[in-house]
């Protein structure tokens, strides 16, 4: 066992783990942060994407001990303290960027990383960046649309919302 300490969503956390503990296991188990999902555990699907020192990584393919001393941000750290959604989360809600929602935490974390690197991506760049995030509902269209909207590039967003029924 080894002691691991990190800053998680702005809070100091620590725990004793076996060296083989994956970062995602540490997050979901002892720390009870279950927003980060495990889809494939083979670094294909991207449901477990979190930020480590501001970089998107697959938490199923990194050891908890490798994140010792790092700043880790998960989906739980995206919304404001008062529950106000992050602009990317808000865009996913607004544009129906999720169906079953399983891939959504990873999609949002990847999208936030993309917009930080490239605030005005083209649609092709969005799709390329999401290469490591799989949505088995195949709902990519609205995910891409949500990210374009979050980057402020969706013209006439209110009038073009297929799949969303205005009450």
């Amino acid at each position: 066992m080894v002691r691991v300490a990190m800053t998680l969503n702005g809070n100091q956390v620590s725990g004793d783990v076996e060296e083989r503990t994956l970062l995602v296991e540490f997050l979901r188990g002892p720390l009870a942060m279950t927003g980060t999902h495990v889809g494939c555990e083979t670094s294909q699907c991207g449901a477990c994407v979190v930020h480590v020192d501001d970089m998107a990584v697959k938490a199923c393919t990194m050891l908890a001990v490798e994140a010792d001393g790092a700043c880790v941000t998960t989906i739980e750290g995206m919304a404001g303290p008062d529950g106000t959604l992050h602009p990317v989360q808000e865009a996913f809600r607004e544009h129906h960027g999720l169906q079953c929602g399983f891939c959504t935490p990873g999609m949002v974390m990847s999208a936030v990383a993309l917009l930080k690197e490239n605030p005005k991506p083209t649609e092709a760049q969005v799709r390329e960046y999401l290469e490591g995030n799989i949505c088995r509902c195949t709902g990519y269209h609205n995910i891409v649309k949500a990210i374009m909207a979050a980057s402020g590039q969706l013209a006439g967003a209110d009038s073009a919302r297929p799949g969303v029924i205005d009450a």
Partner: protein
Amino acid sequence: MHNFQFVRPTSIKDAIRELESDEAQALGGGQTLLPTMKARLAAPEKLVSLLAIPELRGVRLDGDVLWVGGATTHAVVARDGAQAFPGLARLAGQIGDPAVRNRGTLGGSLANNDPSACYPAALLATGATVVTNAREIAADDFFDGMFGTALDEGEIISAVRFPIPQASAYSKMPQPASRFALVGAFVAKYPDGVRVAITGASEEGVFRWSQAEAALSADFSENALRGLSIEPEGMIADIHGAADYRAHLCAVMTRRAVAGAI
């Protein structure tokens, strides 16, 4: 995954000492090693992370050579190598996906020498030099068949020196699930000739296509490749592609690399 001891030395010297013990294994970004350990295809007793060693990290322009530290991630090569050596930076920017590129390292990829990895093509096509803690190894002598390299037990790749070509490009047909190269071709043009290296295709791992090198050295154009082909014999054949398909892709990817060379 079986349990192991984990250490994170901060100097090459300490890393070498840690690697002296039996069943110790160097760890780069772990994007191949950790999945391999999960599948219990590897079970080291000790992992020696190389990521906290500052002298193994970074990209530096050194005259007409690009120096890349062994523990430098693909994302950093894609970003910091773009100006000096765009062909290499674009190759790095096509490895895996963004999250994998934020962890995976040059040295890790080379030490593993997956027959479908991208970096081996860049090293072989540029005649790069692999610098280890003990010696320097020419790319032509480094790769030794599938998953084989000239590295000794406990030897660490500290850096790679890439002679920067006048023009170069990497063209890859990705295997869409793994994002490894089904076939990838790296073409590099130098004042004294052109080098072509192909990855993903051969059962022997990365190789130079000497016929294409001779043709392109005489005339660096797509036309020069007309009529040249590689025999399917010795090509990898699996559910992702038959041997003759891979052989065909060798010529197509080389042509595309020549057309896209910058």
